């Protein structure tokens, strides 16, 4: 931790000193200016509504993606014929860059939080779906046999055996999914909204305000970092009973 802090300080110092040469300060700004902007934003309260909006949209998008993604994955893992039916369509959708869908979303549902949530959910869905699907599909046959001899039907097998057995995979995919939801929301705000961190970046960039762009990026980076740490500990706590079996 100490060493990381040192590296960071060194880089910031290099940036501060390096930015003094030529016109680079115009493009790069300086750490002092960025810190100044961050301070100003938090004092005036200017940044909070934007940050809040981004977080709200991310959580909404993530919620939808987590629900639909794991449900689709579970249904497809439980039924190979359903999987064969849906796999080509899903793969085609997966290979389409989500950002090109943004104009379409605006066309369909206009500007505002709705397309932002949609883009967030869309970005997050595939990560969650593919991550969970692999784990759910490859659940050991011994669980499925056990379900069968205990008289479990389709739903019981899916929800009481397959889903918890794939728990660690699903948790890992949800972790990634949350990050994708956050970034998806920012992408959405950059094209289809007038609030949020994404909007702030585009607005600052078009106003030639490098310090604000970088300050916004710093906020986004800090939130992503915080999210990752939060999720890592949540995942550890949730997966502990499952891993205990493997360790025993």
């Amino acid at each position, binding site marked *: 931790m100490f060493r990381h802090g040192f590296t960071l300080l060194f880089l910031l110092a290099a940036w501060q000193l390096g930015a003094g040469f030529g016109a680079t300060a115009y493009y790069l700004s300086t750490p002092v200016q960025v810190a100044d902007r961050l301070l100003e934003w938090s004092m005036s309260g200017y940044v909070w509504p934007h940050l809040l909006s981004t977080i709200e949209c991310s959580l909404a998008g993530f919620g939808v993606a987590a629900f639909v993604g794991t449900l689709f994955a579970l249904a497809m893992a439980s039924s190979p014929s359903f999987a064969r039916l849906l796999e080509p369509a899903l793969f085609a959708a997966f290979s389409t860059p989500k950002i090109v869908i943004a104009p379409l979303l605006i066309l369909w549902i206009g500007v505002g939080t709705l397309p932002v949530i949609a883009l967030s959910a869309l970005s997050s869905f595939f990560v969650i779906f593919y991550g969970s699907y692999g784990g759910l599909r490859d659940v050991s046959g011994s*669980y499925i046999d*056990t379900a*069968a001899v*205990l*008289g479990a039907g389709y739903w*019981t097998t899916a929800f009481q055996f397959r889903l918890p*057995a794939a728990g660690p995979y699903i948790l890992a995919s949800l972790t990634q999914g949350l990050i994708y939801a956050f970034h998806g929301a920012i992408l959405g705000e950059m094209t289809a909204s007038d609030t949020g961190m994404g909007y702030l970046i585009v607005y600052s960039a078009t106003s030639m305000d490098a310090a604000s762009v970088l300050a916004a990026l710093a906020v986004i980076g800090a939130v992503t970092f915080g999210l990752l740490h939060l999720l890592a500990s949540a995942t550890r706590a949730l997966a502990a009973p499952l891993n*205990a079996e493997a360790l025993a």
Partner: protein
Amino acid sequence: MAVALESISVTGTSVEISGVSRVFRVDGREVNALRDVSLTVRPGEFVSLLGPSGCGKSTMLRIIAGLDRPDAGECVVDGAIVRAPSLSRGVVFQDHRLLPWLTVRENVLLALHKAPIGQDGREARVLELLDLVGLSAFAGAKPHQLSGGMSQRAAIARALAPRPRLLLLDEPLGALDSLTRSRLQGELLRLWEHEKVTVIMVTHDVEEAVYLSNRVFVMEPRPGRVRGIFDVSIPYPRRRVDADFVALRQSILDILEREATAAELTC
């Protein structure tokens, strides 16, 4: 009294296996896991399928359970051809296969999810079963907190929960140390008498087979088939040092020994 009624109504099923064959394709080769196996188990009987690994014991058990289908022949339990698993046939695998995310109590409860006895009835049945296998104090424990022997007790309790009439045991004590193993053998006999079920147990331990079974089916591999059937008419409880116990164990060992030598010569 509920208990008295049950002991009258619950009796073991008969099993008739006729001409069962099962072929697996492994790496382009055909493996005859079972070829033309026929055997009958009488209601309430305790029989063992005994043989070296690879002679199709587990495959046979999976077919009786309904987890696998034979390529030829049929398996009839209580007059009906087996096509799928049923709650009237309980299975215990060598690895306990308890669900690691559930407690012992919840694992047994899960086996009762279809029992038409209400939530209170289910809870009562779970307590009764845990008491029966001596695990009452561990109802709230997770499987990874149990010893091997305790896990197998829990697995047996779970298999007995829906009141099966046939209990299929695939090397249930195979992974246990010898002390725990012989104690659980005694427990199995007690459960068999208490539950009045038919038991088919797979084992590769001759002494275990002779100690527990009414009859022992000795199997041999490549192709998997029944080599000989031994009646064990020694009354329970048996003593492993009695002369007829030792003699029977030896004659079964001799057969297995000859089998192994023959297999080596043909390989």
